Structure formats: C-alpha cells, structure tokens
C-alpha cells in the first residue's frame, strides 16, 4: 500500500527511497525521448502555472512583511514588524514554547509506541494483528474535525480538563499511525536472519532489541520522530478542540491573529517560519541522502 502521508508530504521522501521504475529497454528509450521533447507542451504550461500559483501567496506575504504601513498599500521598506515580532510579542513566544514542548514529548511517545508495534506486527503473527493493522491507518483517512471532536467529547465525558495534557495525548495519537507505517516500511528491508543470529548467540530479547534491531533501523526511527515533531508543530484543527485556556500553541495563536485582526506581524512570522521550515527540510534532505548513501 503506497499511501502518501497527507499531513506531511515530506515523509513521502522516505518512501521514495525504495522505488521501482520500469527498467526494460524500450521503457528507458521512451522515457529518454520524452525527457528531451520540446518545452512548450500543455503539461509543462500547467505545471509552471501551478508552481506559480502555489508560491504566489507566500511571495506576497513575505513582500508585505517588509511594508512600513499596516495595510496593503506599499509605503516603504521597513523592518519594524520584525522588530515587533521579536521584541513585542511575548504571548507568541510562549505559545511557541508550548508547541515545542508538546511536539517533542508527543513525538517521543508516538515513536516509542509505534516502533515497538511495527516490530511486533512485522515479525510475529498473533491474534489482534489484523485489528492493529486496520485501525492504525484510520486516523490518516478521517478528517481532522472528526478526530478533534471525538477527543473533545471523550475528554469531557471522562472529566479531564482541557490543557497541555490533552493536547499531548491528542498529538501522540494522531502521529502514531505515521510512525507505525514508516517504521514498518523500513522493517520490510530488514533481514530477519540477523535476529536469529543474535538469539543463537545467546542474546535475550531485550538485548536483541536494543543492540541489534534499533541500531539497524535507527534512520527510519529518526525520520519518523522528526516527522511527528513536524506534524505536531503544524497541527491546528485537532489542537483547537482539545486545548484549554492557557495552553495555546503557535498555530492556535496564529489563528487568533488571523481571525480577529490582520496584524502584519503575521507576515513577518510567516517569513520566519518559512525560512525555518526550509532550513529544517534542507538539513533533513541531506540527512536522508546520507542515510541512503550509506546503505
């Protein structure tokens, strides 16, 4: 099953590390002929326009983050919104901190649980295996509203007050399936006979786990962890429903800014986030490339 990961398409890159393109000679000839054909076909035009379309809002936002005035009328280049962003927005940075705390902790839990489960499901047959496999991809399919509402009602029903804890639980829950699937995909390429060798040499299960399995799939685990962190940092809808007063995350804070007034500080924040994400993505890409190269 070749699911792209909708909430975080760059988890997609990990799955692309093992791809199969048709390799027969005519297929290669045909592909090469297509690559060399002229530029101006319909598909190229649509592609170019789409890329423009995708980048347009971001470009406009970034441009106007440097606008001296508040509105959309350009009145001169200025960095005062950036100044306000870094020095005048205490609440923003608090929510930023909240986001990170939740992201790392929920990613940790999700990674541990998901990795263990992937190991169990991949190599063992047991009752309930199908159950786990089936329910584990449900969260990827259901709209976030449903997940958010259901958790809200759930916490209400068991009288747990909404706050950092509930956000933490919710995030770990929706990151789990992605970790599970990513590690599972990694395990597919893993040679089970290494484990048999370890047992044969006297290792206990725990030793095998920590000294043999985990080191071998560590890149996969790390990718899954990072992806969880990213998804958690980004999430809005689910967090919206399960957060309480005083437990604002960055997306929630941005939401309130968008909803209740257009402060250009958002534009400045946008650029900071864009650059930050690109930086992380760039580092991640190199990391993954090294991982692929070292295999």
């Amino acid at each position, binding site marked *: 099953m070749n699911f792209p990961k909708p909430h975080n398409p760059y988890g997609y890159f990990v799955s692309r590390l093992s791809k199969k393109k048709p390799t*027969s*000679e*005519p*297929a290669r*000839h*045909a592909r090469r*002929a297509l690559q060399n054909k002229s530029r101006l076909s319909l598909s190229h035009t649509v592609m170019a326009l789409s890329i423009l379309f995708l980048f347009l809002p971001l470009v406009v936002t970034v441009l106007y983050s440097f606008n001296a005035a508040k509105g959309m009328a350009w009145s001169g280049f200025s960095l005062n919104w950036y100044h306000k962003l870094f020095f005048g927005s205490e609440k923003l940075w608090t929510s930023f901190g909240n986001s990170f705390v939740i992201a790392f902790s929920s990613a940790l839990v999700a990674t541990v649980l998901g990795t263990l489960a992937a190991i169990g499901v991949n190599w063992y047959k047991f009752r309930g295996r199908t159950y786990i496999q089936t329910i584990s991809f449900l969260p990827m399919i259901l709209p976030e509203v449903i997940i958010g509402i259901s958790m809200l009602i759930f916490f209400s029903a068991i009288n747990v007050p909404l706050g950092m804890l509930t956000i933490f639980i919710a995030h770990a829950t929706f990151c789990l399936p992605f970790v599970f699937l990513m590690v599972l995909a990694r395990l597919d390429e893993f040679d089970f006979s290494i484990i048999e060798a370890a047992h044969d040499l006297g290792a206990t299960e725990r030793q095998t786990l920590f000294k043999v399995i985990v080191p071998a799939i560590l890149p996969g685990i790390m990718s899954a962890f990072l992806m969880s962190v990213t998804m958690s940092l980004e999430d809005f809808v689910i967090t919206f429903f399960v957060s309480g007063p005083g437990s604002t995350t960055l997306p929630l804070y941005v939401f309130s800014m968008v909803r209740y007034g257009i402060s250009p500080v958002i534009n400045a924040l946008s650029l900071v986030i864009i650059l930050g994400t690109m930086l992380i993505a760039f580092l991640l890409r190199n990391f993954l490339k090294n991982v692929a190269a070292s295999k």
Partner: protein
Amino acid sequence: MSKSFGSFHALDDANIKINKGEFFSLLGPSGCGKTTLLRIIAGFEMPDDGIVTFDGKNIIGIDPNLRQSNTVFQNYALFPHLSVFENVAFPLRIRKVDNATIKRKVMEYLHLVQLDAHVGKKPNQLSGGQKQRVAIARALINEPSVLLLDEPLSALDAKLRQNLLVELDAIHDQIGITFIYVTHDQSEALSVSDHIAVMNQGKVLQIGTPFEIYESPATEFVAKFIGETNLFDSRVIECAPSTNDEFMVTLDVPELGKQIKVTDYDQTQSGQQVSFTVRPEKVRITLEEPQSTNKEINVFKGVVEEPIYSGFQSKFYVKLDNGTELKVFKQHQNYLEDGPDIAWKDTVYVSWSANDGYIVEVINQ
C-alpha cells in the same frame, strides 16, 4: 521500397536501402545504433539530418501514428489493462472500425499467431512467447507496409526463440510485407534474413545477404562478430593472377609462422598489411599428415589443446608449433568415416586450401 538515412550522434552517416517485401535485419552489438535507427523509422526519434523514405516519400516529421509502419517491441508493450482481444483490436478501435469487422479480423490474426484459445486473458496471465505473439498480431492487424521488430525474441529462452523465429519467417512468407528486424544475435539474422546490415558504433559496416556477410566479411569486426573465426594480421608478399578472374595471393602471416596462399577477387599490392581469416569449419584436422603436393593447400602441425564435443560436431583448439592457437570445427557426419577420435594432447595436422581463406580488408596504418 527504399529507405535512406543521414547522420545522428548515435548513428553516423548510415545509408541503407531496403527492398519491398524483404526480411531485412539490422545486426550488431548493443549500443551500435540499430535500435535508434529503428526508432527513427518508426517515428519516435528525429535524426539530426537525413531522411527516411517509403516508396520515395520522405516520412521524417510525420507523426508515428500516421506512418505506414508498425512496431513489435522488445518488452511486448502490451496494454496491461486490456484483454488479449482488446489489445489486438486496439488499432481498429482507434480507426473506428465496426464491431463485426473487428471481431472477424482479430480472430483472423489471433489464429495466425495460434492464440485463439487465449482471447479473454489479460497480458499478465500469458507467458513470454504468448505475449510476443499478441504483440505481433496487434502490429499486423493494421496491415502496415512495413513491420518493425525491435529484438522481439531477446527476452525469451533459447528453445522458444528458435521456434518463434521460424514462425516469424513463416508469417513473413505468408503476409509478404517488409520486415525490418533488429537483433544482436547473428545466428537469428543469418537464418531468416534476405539481407543483413551489420552495424557497430553507429556505422553501417556491411550490407549483404547472409552468405555474403558470412563468407566475405567486409571488416575485421564483421568477421569476428559473425560466427567464429580465425583472424590474423598479415602482409602481402605477392599477388599473381590466377584462373577464374582470381588472384593467387601469397601472405606472410607472422602469427602462423610461415607463408600461406589465399585466393582473392581483388588485386592487392605487395607490401600491404591485410587481415586474413579462415573459418574454423573449413579447416581440416587429421592425425596423419595430408598427402598432397598441391601448393595451394596450407598445412600446419600442432597439438590439440582443448577438444569440445557438442554432439553433432567437435571444436578443437589446436596449438601450432609456434604457439598460436587455431580454432577448428569438425562435423561428425558419418559414424564410421572419422576413424580414431582425436583426443587431447594428440599431434594433428590442420589444413585448408587457398580457396577457403579470405582476405577481409586492407589495414591502413
């Protein structure tokens, strides 16, 4: 029908003329440009310069779907989402032929390739040979004037290849259109072609009938690529006219250690460096020295290094007195005639007449 070409970086100044209704093969090792040539004819690539003409009309620039040629691909290129019937019917459906005619023609061509029984199957349920037949039927149903075949048998195993090749030949005889057949397997090309173009590194080295290609190779490469041979560098000592418009040439062959005689239709000049070849099956191998005073017989003495028995023939690698190895093939035509078997480490005499040798080409410095 004639076709002529120009140059392309994968094809260097290729010029070929193909006659109508022929079975014409493009033969050469991988990367020699034969597939590129075929794709240009089919319309999938454009040459940098040069033209392709069908019956005198230049078809360069015409889209592949409007050309009078159809292609059989190496990987079959069957449409996986369509059944056998629909695959073969595809060209007719494109042309909006009516259903009754489609049914009739599809069954006709499936019958031609003996696949009537598999009409409803999907390609992934067929074996390699069956898939190839579907591809052939599909390419023929439009009744093109030229059928292009791009190494159609190379993905099949040996026995099947032989059978299918014979069937292809039969289909060619039955339908009568021009076949242009690309292959790297010289025995395939030799067995069914009317004419062969031998190619290497983008250049066409020789065009001729299978007999011409085999017996009179134009270059060293052709000599080595087709069949097995013994090939030596040599120098012309003298060239004297002989009977039948031929010349008797005396060559000094350093690798053989002494001079030999060979006949040639062309005159060569003494002192020229030429390459000389004699096919292994034309070399006689005997345990006793041949008793002949005919000066035109070249005789050498040697020791059998490696006899390889193949059932209908034996291959001998004979190490001559001066160290050079000569390949000799001997067919076991007669159970009694051969006398004692020639075995390893036997001392033997190898001989061939001047007519059996061949001067391939003049080597320029």
